[in-house]
């Protein structure tokens, strides 16, 4: 895997908000068919780092390479152009719209006359939902009336539908029950098998150890280190998160 070109490489990323260095010279990478976990306390800079990749923030400095090519990501539209899709912690759904409108938000299907084609979008939504979550049946009600799991399905469907190559999941299971968490876990495995690269942000160590291939830990805006899951145990990871201490063993 090391000889391959990484799917994503972020080099020396930094961004500051009013003098506070939220992310300070952080470099991480991601290969296709791999899940990389990003761990750290609240405020460690995980979400901020990843938002520079998804286009929500513009980096103050650093380089982003996709398949070895230097790219510029200034807004969410750019990121989508590079097949980067994000599932946000806050779900980023418009609560007052139905599932189909949310799935296609910003990328509506149009009729030949250039008008929004709700029926075509509903049909596509039904298709992808029957694959992701066959229990999902509420297609015409606002998503505010859906359960947490159903809403998460909409958010995931949005990322998957447009053939993402790079998937960013920011606390994907934070609002979910055990069964729905299991559903998300299975989906991650499935997408990984399909060759996607996935960044998984979480502060649930258990989740991360189970799903990820490598783990990058951040503390106070800096990268503590990146380790392979099979080389470490929970305590090593905890040490990295809390003390910012790299484990003694060989790391990759």
């Amino acid at each position, binding site marked *: 895997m090391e000889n391959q070109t990484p799917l994503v490489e972020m080099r020396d990323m930094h961004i500051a908000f009013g003098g506070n260095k939220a992310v300070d010279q952080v470099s991480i990478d991601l290969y296709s068919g791999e899940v990389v976990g990003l761990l750290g306390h609240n405020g460690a800079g995980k979400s901020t780092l990843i938002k520079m990749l*998804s286009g*929500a923030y513009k980096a103050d400095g650093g380089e982003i390479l996709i398949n070895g090519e230097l790219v510029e990501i200034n*807004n*969410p*539209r750019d990121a*989508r152009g590079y097949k980067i899709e*994000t599932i*946000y912690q*806050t*779900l*980023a*759904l*418009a*609560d*007052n*719209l139905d599932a189909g*409108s*949310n799935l296609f*938000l*910003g*990328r*509506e299907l*149009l009729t030949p006359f250039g*008008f*929004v084609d709700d*029926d*075509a979008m*509903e*049909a596509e939504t039904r298709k992808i939902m029957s694959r992701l979550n066959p229990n999902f049946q509420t297609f015409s009600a*606002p998503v*505010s*009336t859906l359960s947490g799991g159903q809403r998460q399905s909409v958010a995931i469907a949005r990322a998957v539908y447009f053939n993402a190559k790079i998937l960013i999941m920011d606390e994907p299971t934070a609002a979910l029950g055990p069964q729905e968490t299991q559903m998300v876990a299975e989906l991650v495995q499935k997408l990984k098998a399909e060759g996607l690269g996935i960044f998984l942000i979480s502060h649930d160590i258990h989740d991360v150890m189970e799903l990820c291939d490598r783990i990058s830990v951040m503390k106070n805006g800096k990268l503590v280190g990146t380790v392979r899951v099979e080389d470490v145990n929970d305590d090593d990871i905890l040490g990295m998160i809390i003390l910012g201490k790299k484990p003694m063993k060989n790391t990759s």
Partner: protein
Amino acid sequence: MAKDKQNYFASLGIDGRLLGMIGALVALWVMFDLITGGRFITPRNLFNLSVQTASVAVMATGMVFVIVTRNIDLSVGSLLGFVGMMMGALQVYFLPDLVGGGHWSIWIITCLFGVTLGAIIGSFQGWVIGYLAVPAFIVTLGGFLVWRGAAWWVTSGQTVAPLDPVFKLLGGGVEGTLGESLSWALGVFATLAALWLLYLSRKRKLAHGFLVKPFWVELTVAGIIGVVIVGYAAFMNAYPIPARAAKRIYENKGLELPDGGSALVYGIAIPVVILLIVAIIMTFLAKRTRFGRYVFATGGNPDAAELSGINTRMLTVKIFALMGALTAIAAIIASARLGSADNNLGNLDELRVIAAAVIGGSALSGGFGTIHGAILGALIMQSLQSGMAMVGVDAPLQSIVVGVVLVLAVYVDIAYRRRAGL
């Protein structure tokens, strides 16, 4: 039981809130008709009611987009005054020298100028709100003062009159109507168009294999729409033009008044036709264009809209530009109706417009609102005011009633939404 009923209506795809508003309107009309001994539901009164509603209703459709995106526009009344004065000055003081007095193009140039001016001012306010991040409340509060003052400056407070005769037709006076046969034609055409759209929508849904409403429901809905449209046309055609005005019309055409008096009737007023066109375009914008979809998405969750790649700042500019253009159309109707433009034009209209949109189900917390609801809201407000005036309720008490009804209507709306789990 109540829940069952709600689900029943929902399964038929009928909006409970819409039914409630129509119910409230009918109740108001019947009540006023009973109190006034049958003077309220008459062709004459409903004609006046529809003309009086048109100007505020046109603006209310734009206010829906403004409110849905969690903004407010307090400047529409003053802007109406300013644009009205500018259009008045243009057609009375400038155009006659330029193209000749009474020239056929005066009203067209005036209207184009007004709508452009309204859109430019609106987009400027939208730019300050969207790009400079000054709250809409403040920007349009400033606009409220600025445009009322500017309206005065146009002629140093002088009333501009008389306006161009063709322009005045847009206000719906004695001659500003479609007349009998055109009214019938519009009624029949609108009904057929509505049926055609219902049919197309059903066909599209069937083609995708979706569940459709039972056929009898669609038929009933179509029937009600047809009866309302044709009924309105029939009612307006039952309003005869008074003998003296009719005589003048015949004389202008060089004809003799026929024996046994004139058979001339008003028919549908032109402001109502304008409102109808605006309503159709705005509904279409809201439901079938990306612009409309982004308006509602931004209102529902501004962050989600931004993360989906929607340029919400530019969207704000567009929304306020549209509001400005609609305000100009309202200014055309209002000044044409008066036959003159004065500094008082549109005074307090911003409150009527906001009240209409809010009664019509636009939530100030954003994300919800419909065009037809806002128009119904405007009609309810106007009915309430006309009715009370007719009954002889004192002006101060009228304000009190309108104020209480406004708050009550919004409370009912919030309670309804909460129960529906929205």
